[in-house]
């Protein structure tokens, strides 16, 4: 597909504005190794990717987004060694397979990536205000602003007295709303695991002290002549087996804990209203969510200071972006009239991304992507 020159030049002006804001323009390779995308976005991403292999059998793909390529190029460059923040912007094609008959799989995306800034709240706010500039560039001055904050849910889960298995599960399922609802349902039911085979051992272990129980299971596995199998160690298997034993005794979630989670997930509104509701929830439940809430309020302050009318922002505690590499603030900008298929701009914070791509030290990261065709289609419609 050839990209319409008008489409490109209008987007080029937008990226020029990003450059003037201090972002360095980069153009990563279209052809990328498939592994980082599958590792970070999960196997579910594969069906939306154009995967191919080279003659040596390596799996490659046409880039499905630009965040990972920009991050990889940055890590490979000498500049990544310095602790100084790095800011990049881009304009280029991304490739996503939305099933046969869904039209071209090639889309034009512009975006920014900000790596290494430690002033988290200000960097979050800057990303959202640049996103608003992007829609304004196409004449969409009042998009619907949806925001969320994954770190608030993480903080809630961390503060609750829950078995580790349940914490892992809830954290994982935050991005999968149907499963999350099912999880809460299951949590309310006592030990509905239906495991019968090892019930005797599990019951005996439940009363033993954890250390002795762990040692016993490890010994049993060793006696059976089993060493590490399938990449898991004996200790790891024993850990979880003992954990299951403990969970088996009291796996029902106390009703009030489920109520807390559901009340949390029900909180939505303007950032200020949501913050007040969250503080009230934390106080009622005797939970400390202060660091996450402080950051949240500070971010709202920076947004107001950069001229965003925060009363127009819709915040939902349950809002996630469906991809589990986000770690904090997330946002999407939509056409209020619902004329576009999907979000116009989307972004958020992914502080674990660069570490997962091999950075020796943690690098905070925040960015956004602009769906050019969707915005241009709104302009072409002669609106607003």
């Amino acid at each position: 597909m050839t990209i319409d020159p008008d489409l490109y030049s209008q987007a080029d002006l937008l990226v020029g504005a990003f450059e003037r804001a201090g972002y360095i323009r980069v153009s990563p390779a279209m052809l990328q190794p498939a592994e980082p995308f599958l590792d970070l976005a999960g196997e579910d991403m594969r069906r939306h990717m154009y995967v191919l292999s080279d003659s040596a059998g390596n799996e490659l793909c046409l880039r499905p987004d630009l965040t990972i390529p920009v991050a990889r190029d940055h890590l490979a460059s000498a500049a990544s060694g310095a602790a100084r923040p790095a800011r990049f912007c881009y304009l280029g094609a991304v490739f996503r397979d939305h099933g046969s008959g869904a039209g071209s799989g090639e889309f034009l995306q512009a975006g920014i990536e900000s790596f290494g800034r430690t002033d988290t709240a200000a960097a979050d706010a800057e990303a959202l205000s640049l996103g608003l500039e992007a829609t304004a560039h196409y004449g969409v001055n009042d998009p619907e602003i949806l925001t969320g904050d994954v770190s608030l849910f993480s903080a809630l889960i961390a503060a609750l007295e829950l078995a580790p298995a349940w914490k892992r599960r809830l954290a994982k399922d935050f991005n999968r709303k149907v499963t999350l609802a099912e999880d809460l349902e299951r949590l309310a039911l006592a030990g509905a695991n239906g495991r019968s085979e090892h019930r005797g051992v599990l019951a005996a272990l439940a009363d033993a002290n954890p250390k002795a129980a762990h040692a016993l299971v490890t010994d049993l596995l060793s006696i059976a002549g089993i060493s590490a199998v399938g990449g898991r160690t004996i200790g790891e298997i024993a850990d979880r087996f003992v954990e299951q034993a403990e969970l088996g005794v009291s796996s029902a979630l106390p009703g009030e804990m489920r109520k807390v989670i559901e009340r949390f997930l029900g909180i939505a509104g303007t950032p200020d209203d949501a913050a007040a509701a969250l503080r009230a929830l934390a106080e009622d439940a005797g939970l400390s969510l202060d660091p996450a809430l402080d950051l949240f309020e500070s971010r709202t302050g920076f947004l107001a200071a950069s001229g965003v009318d925060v009363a127009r922002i819709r915040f939902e505690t349950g809002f996630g972006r469906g991809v589990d590499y986000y770690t904090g603030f997330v946002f999407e900008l939509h056409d209020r009239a619902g004329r576009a298929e999907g979000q116009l701009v989307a972004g958020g914070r992914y502080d674990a991304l660069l570490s997962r791509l091999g950075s020796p030290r943690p690098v905070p990261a925040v960015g956004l992507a602009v769906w050019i065709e969707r915005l241009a289609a709104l302009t072409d419609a002669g609106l607003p």
Partner: protein
Amino acid sequence: MSALVLAVPAKGRLQENAERFFARAGLDLVKPRGTRDYRGAVARLDGVEVAFLSASEIAQQLAVGGVHFGITGEDLVREMIPAVDAKVALIEALGFGHANVVVAVPEAWIDVRTMADLDDVATSFRARHDRRLRVATKYINLTRSFFAGHGIADYRIVESAGATEGAPAAGTAELIVDITSSGATLAANGLKIVDDGMILRSQANLVASRLAPWGREALATAAVILDRIEAQARARRYKEVRTRFGGCNDTLLGVAKTQFGVVTPFGGPTSSGMLTLHCPPDAVHRLALFLREHGADSVIVADIEYVFTRDNPLFARLDAAVRPKN
């Protein structure tokens, strides 16, 4: 040029079973140009071209309409054909080529019995090892949708071309999704099936491509083939039971129908009391006892070669799948 293309597995047990299946229906597959030929015909039936292909090629050809009918495993059909229901129709399960697609983990994973356990292990594995659990399989699409259905996200698929069950021991994957018929190969490799890890109970199927050129001629030939297959399949479901006795009446027949599952191809007894029944094989002896208790002197049971009937459910299925909608 032949009107109808029928794809049959080119080698192995699947080929033998498929040829036997057609032969039973009076459709002998022949290779007029020698056994090495990959094109054949059906003896005494014009208008059919038989293509001998690998089971996976058959699935591919069905997907693009390159063949009208194919014999292949349901596992391959569901794995290899996206939007499967729009492209093919499963006409009949054939009772051979049984294979279950299952999720199997190392036996040493004593903490894993269910898919929910596996989900939890996947998540903690990622946190502990900083990489995702690897699943070796050739069933990428089946695995992906099954795992998604169980909410499992923290895993990676490692494509495996063969000897998948060896992957965990070789260290190239943590667990596998593979076919098994008896589970013996899994056990020999120190693997166990997850309790609710049955993805698909597969067997060989007669599959029709909805995208093949179903002209009038092809449909007519298909009707002949399906008529014979159905007649033979129906014959195998029953034994023919013949008897003659005066006390036979509709009430007695009603009892026989509900108790033994018999059908009456020619209706009730003739004026002379002659009665022909079709009875499921496992109920034959009980039926014979029942008939004698009610007055029959002798009951004759025989195998049936074919049962041709006016209706043909197989052709009805094909017709519904390929008839243009307007």
